[in-house]
Structures are given as C-alpha cells and as structure tokens.
C-alpha cells in the first residue's frame, strides 16, 4: 500500500536525555545526503522527566512527519524501558539499538511498581537488537553527558549502511556546527565510539 521509499527512525528516551539534539544532528546528516526529511518532536510538559520520542522519516518524498505503529525501520532507545514501550512501533524485521541504561519512573521510585526485569532478553527474542552501554562509554571519555552523542554515533552507523549517499555524510562538520567549541572534542570522541560500537 505504501511505497517503501521512506525510511522511518524513532529516537526514544526520557525527558532530559538529549534525544532532541541527537535527532537534529541525525536529520541534518540525512538532509546533506540529499534526502527529503521530516522530523517531529514534542516539547512541553513531557520534558519534565516524561517519556519522549523524536521521529524521523526520510526518502525521496516524505509526507507525514510521524512514524506509525509497525513502521519504524530503526529504533534507537536511550533508555531500556522506553525500548520496550516503543517496541510495537518497530517494523517486523526492523533494527533496534538499545542503551543498557535504566531510569526508574515515578511509580518505580515510590515503590508502586517494579522496573521490569529481562527487557533485553525479551526484546532480543522479538527483534534484531544491538545493546550498547552508552553511559559507560561516555563516562570512559570523561563526560557522562555525552551519552546522547554516543547513541547518535550508533544511529549514524545504522543509517549509513542503508545507502551509498549516507556513507558519505560529513558527520564531523555537522557535529561542529551543533556543538560548543569547548565540548566539540569530547563529543567527537563520543560519536566515534558510538559509530564504532
């Protein structure tokens, strides 16, 4: 029914994790490769520690800016439970990159609910899952706040294999445009670590 010329990516996480910046850089890379790109994000109340998603669709011509259930070719989950929450958006046969990182939500903090155990096993049984320990990688680089850029690197790697044009994106130039000079170097390393992971 739908032309398969559009690829859909979801970046999901928790408000404050930096999914929006990562999505912005990823989208700019896709534009530089000559694609039509639409990206959608929600600001506002959900940012206060709520579940957040940014959605990217790219191809020769993109209409809707949002990704439907069963439509995402790639999901990059910045938090493990969010990967589970968004699983139904993954296209059967799609790829999921999951950060092995837990942020307990309010009902878990207060003891009303328990953080689900065995998420990675469950996801791996259902889909093509790559697990990344982005927090450890970022801490290893000396700046825990670069975790989102490690995940961005992994996302860039995942899209790069999709087409020749994407293999030639100058990610470094796009990073430089979006980073404060003082943090450029560590973010470059973070990106490279994610890309190579």
């Amino acid at each position, binding site marked *: 029914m739908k032309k398969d010329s559009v690829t859909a990516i979801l970046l999901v996480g928790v408000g404050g994790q930096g999914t929006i910046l990562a999505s912005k850089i990823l989208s700019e890379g896709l534009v530089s490769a000559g694609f039509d790109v639409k990206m959608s994000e929600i600001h506002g109340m959900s940012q206060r520690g709520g579940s957040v998603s940014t959605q990217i669709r790219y191809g020769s011509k993109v209409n809707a800016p949002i990704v439907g259930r069963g439509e995402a070719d790639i999901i990059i989950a910045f938090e493990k439970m969010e990967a589970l929450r968004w699983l139904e958006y993954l296209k059967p046969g799609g790829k999921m990159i999951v950060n092995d990182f837990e942020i307990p939500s309010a009902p*878990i903090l207060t003891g009303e609910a328990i953080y689900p155990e065995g998420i990675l096993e469950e996801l791996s049984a259902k889909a093509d899952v790559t697990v990344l320990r982005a927090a450890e990688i970022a801490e290893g680089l000396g700046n825990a706040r670069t975790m989102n850029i490690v995940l961005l690197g992994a996302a860039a790697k995942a899209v790069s294999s999709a087409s020749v044009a994407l293999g030639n994106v100058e990610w470094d130039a796009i990073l430089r445009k979006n980073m404060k000079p003082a943090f450029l170097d560590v973010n470059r390393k973070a990106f490279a670590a994610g890309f190579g992971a």
Partner: protein
Amino acid sequence: MSERRLMTGNEAAARGAWEAGLAFASAYPGTPSTEILENLAEYKSDLYAEWAPNEKTAMEAAIGASMAGVRSLAALKHGGVNVAADPLFTFAYTGVNGGMVLVSADDPGLHSSQNEQDNRHYAEAAKVLMLEPSDSAETLEYMKLGFELSERFDTPVMLRMTTRICHSKSIVTLGERTPAPHKIYERNIRKFVATPANARAMRAKLTERLEQELSYANAEAVRVGVNRIERASEPGEGERIGVVSAGAAYQYARDVFGGRASYLKLGLTWPMPIDLIREFAEEVDKLYIVEELDAFMETRIKAAGIDCVGKERIPVWDELNTDIVRFAVFGERAETLNSDMKAVPRPPTLCAGCPHRGLFWGLSKRKNVLVSGDIGCYTLGSAPPLSSMDSCFCMGGSIGAGHGAAKAFKESGQDARVAAVIGDSTFFHSGVTGLMNAVFNGSNIVTVILDNRITAMTGQQQNPGSGFTLTGEAAPEVDIPELCKAVGIREDRIRVIDPLDLNAVNKALDEALADDAASVIVTRRPCVLKRFSERDLLEFGEPRGVCVVDEEKCTRCKLCVKTGCPAIYGGGDTVFINENMCTGCGVCEQVCPFDAISLKE
C-alpha cells in the same frame, strides 16, 4: 542557489514573517507556539519583538502596531486566542493599516494543554481569513501570503498551526527580507473607533469583504496554488476517490490514499471555497473529508448538499496520524511486534530541586484546604505522591475560582479554606485581577504566588517580574509584594518565604490559615533549570552540594520518597539519592525524621 534548511514550523513562521518585512511582534509563551517569538528575537536588528504579560495584551499591541502602519504579528496557543478573542473580534471590523497575522497554534492530542479546541471556529466566528499550512515550507510561504492578503482585504489574517506543524522539521527554501514600506498613520475615526454607529458601517463592509475573500479562495487562490487540486497519479480501475484535506491531516491522507486518489488540498480554509469543493466533488465518485478535530469543513460541505464521508469514520478528537486514518478508512493496521512484558508508565514530574516541592509538601499535610491550581509546572503538584491540588482550569483562574469556592464554603457552612497556587508569570497574566476581586469582595482566600523568577513550563521565558526582556535587555521588575499591597492586601498579610525552608512554609501556611482574611504568600526561589543572573546569584547563592543517605540511620520509612523527588530511589530495600540529579535543595533532609539525610558539599 537559495539556501535550503531543515526548520520547525515555528522557525519557518518566524522566518516567513521576517522575510515579509515584519516590524512588530508580541506574544505570551504557550506550547506549541512559544518558539515563534524566540526565533523572531534572533532577527532583532531588523524588527521589534516582545513578550507581553498575556495574550490579550499581545494582540492589542499587535493591533496598535498595525494601526500605526507596520506589519505586525501575534503568536498564541489555542487557549491564548480565547484570551485575545475580545480585541480580535473588533479588529476584524476595523481592519488593518499595516498587515497583521495572528498565529493560532492548536494542540490536538493535548500534548501540553488543558483542553483540545479547534480554533478554526474562530475564523468563522470572528470573520477573518484563515490559512492552514501542512509543513514548514508552507508555513513560511503562507506567512508571507498572510501579510499580503491582510493588506489587500483590510483584515487580520489567522495562520492556524497545530503542534505537529509547529514542532516538526521539514525542508524550507530561504528567501530574502523584503522590507514592507511603513504606511503613514493618519487619524481615521470612522475606521478605528468602534462606536455602535461606526461599527455598523464596519459590519456592512465586513460582509462585502468576506464575499471578496470567498471569490479569492475559489479562484485566485487556486491559481497561486494555495488551494490546489492534485489529480490521482495512479488512478487505476473502479471508483474514483477524492480527498479534501488541510494542515497536518493532509500529510496523513497522502500516506494513506497514495496515488490512487485525487486531492483537494486547501491552504486557505476560511472563507471556505465551497464552489471549488463542489467542482472537485463532481470529478470523483467518493469524497472523503480528512480533518483533525471537529467536522469543521465536513459540516459546511454537507450543508452545501455535497455527499461525503468524514467523521462517521475519522475520530472527532485526539491528534490524527497515518495509522488512525488508515484504520478509519480501510480498516487496516500494520503488523506489529508485541510483548506481554509491560513498560511502567512514565508521567512527567516536578524536577529534582524544584522549589515548588517544598510548598506542595507543606500543602499536602493540610486538611480541609481546597488547593485551587493554575497553569504551569506546578500543576504537577496534583500528581502522586504529593497529590495536593484540587483544581486547574485556565491561566490565572486559581484565584478567581478559589475566591468563589471560599465564598461558597462560608455561605454553605462548610468548614474549609481555600489556597490558590499560581506562578509569577501566571499571576501577571491574569491572576492579579482575581486577587483584586478577592480583596474587593472580602474573601479569606490564601494566595500563594510561586515566584520562580521565570516562566518555566514553556522553557524559561522572561516576564515582567524577571528583570529582562525577550531580547535580553534589562527591564524593570514588578514588585510582587508591593503590587499585592496596592491591590489591598494588608502588609502584615504578605509573607515572602523560601519554599525550600519547610519551617517557613509551615509557619506561613499556619498563620495565613488561622487568619480569616485574604492574604498572600510569595515563595521566592528561582526555577532549578534557570540560568542564574548576577542578581540571582547575589540573592540566592551558588547551588549547594548533594544530599546523601546515611544507611546506618535510615529506617526505610520512606517519608523522603513521598516528596516525589525523581532523584530519590525508594523502590527496593534501600533508599538512595541519585547524585547526578540531586541539587541539594534539602527538602528530603528536612523531611527525614531520623536525621539520616545530610548535605555533602
């Protein structure tokens, strides 16, 4: 070659207004429209942009600027248009001098709103022309067109966006700024003074104008491509399908119906080009109306005797998307991967270190107090575990509704008091009139003004109390206690406290609730996300260390967990504080009955 850039609808709206030669813009922040003014501020060398205390003030300022002869803009969220509706309806009568565009940013799906309203009805009710873009490129284009049409038809123009248009990025081709010539202002009493005698003449003119606009919508708008027919690229055999759509819904319709349908894509949706729709309907066998929220187009299309399928299939509320439209029309759903394992909900919370937490902790311990809430981050004080709010209606409504409740409690002999909680920006917006009413009419409401020195919920915007303007210039600050005094609150009934000092919170609440009179508590402490100004640093100091739990002393009573701080983990057998999140606010330290929490510098 002109530059192509990925832009949100809000960025494109600002860009389009700048390219159109905009000279004046005003707004009150409100999701999803906030970033329009923030982006206009980037062009401050070419134009003037400001935050107003509320949407009515913003609209009035834009009207004044238009009257004085420049192109002006007001950018409001849907509820904000309610506040600004009074001047809008009359401005539609007087018409403009410089072109004026009102952006209405609706929020289907209530991503960050207290209601879901369809502001297309305003275009009809106020009798103004309406444009509805379906992506960022159209937002830029329609903004420029809006100014042209505003001046051509002598009317304010409404540019109606939705969250998905405002906050989605798509590719935009940038143009240059064409400075609009400033029109010379001349007194014109019959045009701008809406007395009954003048307004009757204006009303007659308005009817003529709508006729002209309608003929533009049916004909010229098609020639310029704002209203356009896109014929099926893969028509196939059988039934010819036609779709009438506008805004974000058009994009979903495109993905669902693809090349086998023809589309009438409307960019100018009011006055509704019914002749054009009829013409299109005659080309097809089956006509679908795909629109988000109300049956705005459908009702009028059906009333014109045109057979179509709409809201009997497509939901009448919530944000649409491709899935919803596909299922509604074809009954098809994509195959999905499902798991029996369920993710625990992740509702938004007050931040770690949020100054509101101390106040809500104090309020949560009170019995027989109705807490009348308002719009802002602090509405999250209604969420568990604090759960200390009874109501929230609209901007500034806490004091007004609280006053009525306080009077009703007395009249009906119910033993209860009322505390209204309202942010600094919301108080300036329209809370101060409620406080005037409470004093004037003698109620005993306790008004708590949560002065966090910024407009926080929408992402740190300046306001009349924060000391800076939209464009970063120093500005006089409203003195909240003095303002309350001027309204008539007795000086000894105005208590300014630090909300992170729980003793001060409790003392202020005790005293205010023991006193059968209207009083004010100002909780003065900057938002934890605020970038401190030099003055903030002087008054409030540098951030403190982090709080740590002494496991020896901790009895796992988990009272600290009940503060709802996202940095405190109390789910298992131990209680610990996430050092990466903790700001050392000290609320948990004061709450702990066993001295088990201490501050580590």
